[in-house]
Every structure is written in structure tokens, then in C-alpha cells.
């Protein structure tokens, strides 16, 4: 079977539809809510679910995701639990799922065992922001061997020549970080010139823009020259305020519909 993530990206491209990936911290606000949140986000029109694997020292995350990670860990969230949830999601949905997280819990789990268990559970891709090109060798083979997409990141400090190398090593999509900063932190308006530059250097993968995409307006600007967006902190913030699943669903729908070309 073709990888669900690849299939989704091909479908979006064929229908000239901009893709939406939604980030959820696994286990936030409570472990019991994860499956309902995934359903709500999927009903709202998300194309990809990105599950954040909480870590005690999330150095690339802003306050919102730091807090959600802390809350999830306090409730006993582990990698095994997250993978068991992926299996449950797979009973009823074929939405692509990518896992995003820090390296250390994966090392402790055993990288080989982790990637193979994840693939069997129904995970489609992996995002490891602590693993720049220079450290890829150790894990890229394992990720590929398990037919998982290895999604790499480019940022505003990545030089154009390096963008195309990263694009070649990346699979599934290319994660275009909108701002030099931590998650949820964008200070200035979306830099469309930078996104355009990434898109023109990335010949292999679709480009999804993330970090600080908070509104339908942000998403619309970001996808002008890209293939989709990733929404994280804004969604987690909404969930943290205790909003109902219906509110979450309509927030996702607003972004998904708002960024489609008219």
C-alpha cells in the first residue's frame, strides 16, 4: 500500500488543495481526550495529524507547547501509550499520522524498536527537530527501512544551497519553519519572500509552513507560495482553554477553508 502521507499529498496536489497539518500534544489536556481531539480535527478538515511526543526539556518549543508537554508527562504519557493510541486511531481512520518529538525518549526506547513499532502501529512519518543534516546518518536509515517518511526542516537561517540538500534528504513533505524562533513565536508577519525561496529550492517535496500560524489569514499568506500549513500552538492554546470539540473542529475548518485558493 502506498504511504498514506504520500497519497494525501498527491491528492492535494491533484485537486489544487492546500494541505493542513494539525499538531496535538499527545496526552494534553488529558490522555482520555486524545482520540476525540483527533476526530474533531479530522472532521474540521485536517489532512495530517502531527502528534507531539512530550519531553521534559523541550528546548525548541515556546511556552504553550512546553506547558502542554509538562501536563501530558505529569499524567504518565509514554511512547508506548502514544503508539497504542495510534493503533486505536487506525481502527477508524486512515488520516496520515506523523510523530514529532525530541530524540532522548526515542534513544531510551531503543531507536530501532521505536521506528518499527511506530510503523506497525500505523505511523506514516517522523519529525525530529534536533536532528539536523549533520546528525541524520545515525537514524535516517532506520526511518527509511521502516517505510516512514523522514520529514526535515528548513528555517530562515538555512542557505539556499542547503535547502535543496535538505529537500533531497527529506520525504513526505518539507517542513518550512516560518521564523527563526521556537514554536508559536513568530514576531513579524509571514515572510512570503522566504517561503517563495524555499518553494523554488525544494524540487522534490511539497512544502508545508509551520511555527506561528495562528489564523486563517496567516495560513492564507503562508500558502500563497507553499503547499500547506502546520498549526500547532494556536490549536493547543484553544484546547487548553477548555473549548469544546465543536469549537476545535470549527477552528480547524476556518483555517482549512480560509486558505484554499478562490
Amino acid at each position, binding site marked *: 500500500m502506498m504511504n498514506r502521507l504520500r497519497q494525501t499529498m498527491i491528492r492535494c496536489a491533484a485537486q489544487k488543495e492546500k494541505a493542513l497539518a494539525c499538531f496535538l500534544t499527545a496526552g494534553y489536556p488529558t490522555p482520555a481526550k486524545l482520540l476525540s481531539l483527533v476526530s474533531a480535527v479530522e472532521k474540521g478538515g485536517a489532512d495530517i495529524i502531527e502528534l507531539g511526543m512530550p519531553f521534559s526539556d523541550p528546548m525548541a518549543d515556546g511556552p504553550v507547547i512546553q506547558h502542554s508537554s509538562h501536563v501530558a508527562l505529569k499524567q504518565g504519557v509514554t511512547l508506548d501509550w502514544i503508539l497504542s493510541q495510534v493503533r486505536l486511531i487506525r481502527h477508524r481512520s486512515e488520516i496520515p499520522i506523523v510523530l514529532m518529538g525530541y530524540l532522548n525518549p526515542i534513544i531510551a526506547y531503543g531507536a530501532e524498536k521505536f521506528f518499527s513499532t511506530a510503523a506497525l502501529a500505523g505511523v506514516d512519518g517522523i519529525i525530529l527537530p534536533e536532528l539536523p543534516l549533520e*546528525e541524520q546518518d545515525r537514524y535516517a536509515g532506520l526511518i527509511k527501512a521502516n517505510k516512514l517518511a523522514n520529514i526535515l526542516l528548513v528555517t530562515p*537561517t538555512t542557505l539556499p544551497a542547503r535547502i535543496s540538500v535538505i529537500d533531497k534528504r527529506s520525504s513526505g513533505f518539507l517542513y518550512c519553519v516560518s521564523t527563526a524562533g521556537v514554536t508559536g513565536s513568530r514576531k513579524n508577519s509571514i515572510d512570503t519572500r522566504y517561503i517563495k525561496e524555499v518553494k523554488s529550492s525544494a524540487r522534490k517535496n511539497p512544502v508545508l509552513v509551520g511555527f506561528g500560524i495562528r489564523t486563517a489569514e496567516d495560513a492564507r499568506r503562508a500558502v500563497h507560495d507553499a503547499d500547506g500549513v502546520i498549526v500547532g500552538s494556536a490549536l493547543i492554546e484553544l484546547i487548553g482553554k477548555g473549548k469544546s470539540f465543536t469549537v476545535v473542529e470549527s477552528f480547524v475548518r476556518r483555517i482549512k477553508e480560509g486558505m484554499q485558493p478562490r
Partner: protein
Amino acid sequence: MSKKKVKLHKYSFPDSRGYFGKYGGRFVPETLMSALRELEELYTAAKRDPVFQNELKEMLQSFAGRPTAMTFAERLSEHYGGGKIYLKREDLCHTGAHKINNTIGQILLAKLSGKKRIIAETGAGQHGVATATVAAKMGLQCVVYMGEEDIRRQELNVHRMKMLGAEIVPVASGSRTLKDATSEAIRDWVSNVESSFYIIGSVVGPHPYPMMVRDFQSVIGKETRSQIKYLEGREPSILLACVGGGSNAIGMFYPFLDSDVQMVGVEAAGCGLRTRKHAATLTKGTPGVLHGSLSYLLQDVHGQVKVAHSISAGLDYPGVGPEHSSLKDIGRVVYASVTDRQALDAAHLLSTLEGIIPALESAHALAYLEQLMPKTSQKDIVVVNLSGRGDKDMPTYMASGITRRKK
């Protein structure tokens, strides 16, 4: 004291990828990669540049007060009745600890980089003070991240940094100590990488930091070697230094790695190795990735980082420099640990016998003398790196009751 000797020939770590054997590396977000490359290039050029080296040497002499003294601890040696104990007096450096050796080196690099804003993390506050000091001298803006718990127990240093014009950002996340201050400093750096220079205070973090900080601190070991040569006409037998992140230890050890000199790094055993309250990373940890490098780490079975504990804020860190991890594995350096209580007793002993109040961090190295000295003979020469002075720790000493103790 005789133990199996591990001798290293042509020690040349780290390799070009920043690895000391299997430890080290650059596990950081892509945003920082170009800055790390620039820093590596800048440092490599500066290392070979006589103008930079002269400027460094000059500033270490005229500003930091180097070379620091080598003091024969006569009464302490008599107290134990074994070999001769010498103290490498890093406590006499400007700002009161070895940290200034590194901040002088890095601020000169910052000046070359053209960046006007300095970021630092601090635990005990000594690195924060040393960074604030050189930033003031160079006229650069300085922001220091410090855990709220450390702000409480190292209040004096907080005021020193403020007086030097630095902005202190209290960190309230996690254990509110050095680990969290470091995460927060890295977040600042990721967000302001084009305008800011990050001065890391220990031999931790992504490559090239562990190498660079080691090189700047190795002035300690180089001076030690020539001073002991001058005083005793030979090499020392054993070197002792405390290990938190491990910068004063590696600074002392590095020039001796390819010799026969024995070395012991002393970690903080806090309330005891059998409790959960300690910071003995090399003794009790397992390899993992934190703050940009692969090294020993205090962590649970799920790979979540544990909260460390030490009475000494400067040692209260669940990680350790990658080079120490490598030196432990190959057996070149022995790593031991002493408890909070043992460190306090050692601080009291040094004060009353030698007229020197040591920093709590350095007191850990001194406390190991209790175990070591009975195994030494008269002909052994032991050098303890007295990495800092104890003024900043007076509130802790007072609270512990040792200041009221009779001789």
C-alpha cells in the same frame, strides 16, 4: 596510589563532526546550524591567529589576574599525613572563579562576530557574573538566564550581575535550576540568532562549544604543569577537580591527558547516591541527548530527564560534558562523588587549616581528599583545582551551621 594506567597517545578529540569517541555532536534545531558553523570557522581562525592569541593572553593577565597562584597546603597535607597537597588558586581569578577564563575567550570571539547582544545561562551565578563582567568591559548588552531556585540560593551573584549592567531573566520552568536556565537560553538564541552571541559556561552544548570552552579553560592545566615543575621539579601524581558540566575539570585535565598523571573528577552525590537527590551524572547516569549533545544523563526509563540535586548550584545539573563521558568510558579519568555533607565539612576544614574559604563546588574536590590521601605516600603530589571562592556560598554555609563550629 597504584591503579591500572590508561595512557593516551596523540589525543585529538573532538573529530571534525564534534565527537569525542561516541559522545558529543550537534543535536540542535536547524535554525542554529548556520550560527554553529560560523562560530566554528571563527574559532578555528582565531586559534591560529597570533593577534587574537595575544589579545587573549593579555586580557587573561591584566584583567583576570593570571597566572593564578599554586599554593602548598601545608597544614592540610599534615592533617592527612600522606602526600603533598597543592591548590591551584582559580579562586583568585577576577570575579572569583575559573569561569572568567572562558568568558574572556568567548567575548573576544563575540567582538569578532560583530554581534552586540550576549546571552548566557548560569547556575551558581559565577558564569553569569563572569559573562556580565566581560560584556561590561566590551560595552555589549548582556542577558543572563537563571533558575528561580538558584536566584534564591545565590542572591549575592544576582546583585553583582545587576550592578554590572546585565539583565537577569528568572526561569520558572522545570526544576528552576541550571538545566532549565540552559533550555531558556537556547530558546532565546534560536529566536535571536542573527543578533546574539551565546556564551556557554561549561563544556556542554553542541559542537564546537565543548571543544572551545575546554581550550579556553586549559590554561589552568598548562599553568599547573609548569608551576609544579618549577616547585617540585616533576609532574604531579594526581589531579582533583569537581565536575558539574565539567569545565574546570577538563581545563585542569586536558593538558595532562597524554601523560601518566592520574585524574579524578568529583561529582555531587547530594543526599547520597542511593537517594534520588544527587547530581552524579557520570556515576549514575546513562547516555542520552540533552542541550545539543550526546553524553551521560540522569534520566528515567522513558528518557525523560531527571531533576538533579546538589547543595552546590554550580554542580546541580543532570548532564555533563561529552568529553568527560568519553574519558570515563576509556578509563582515562576516574569519576567519584561526595555528598553535600562531606563537601560542607571539607569547606570548613580548608577554611580553618589554610585560611581559604572555598566555593561549595570546589569543596567537592577537596572532600575527596578524605578517601584519597590515606592511599597516598609522602612522595605523591596531589593538586586540587580550587575552582572558586566561597563568598557567594556564605548564606548556605551559615544555614548549615559550619560557621559556628569550633575548630
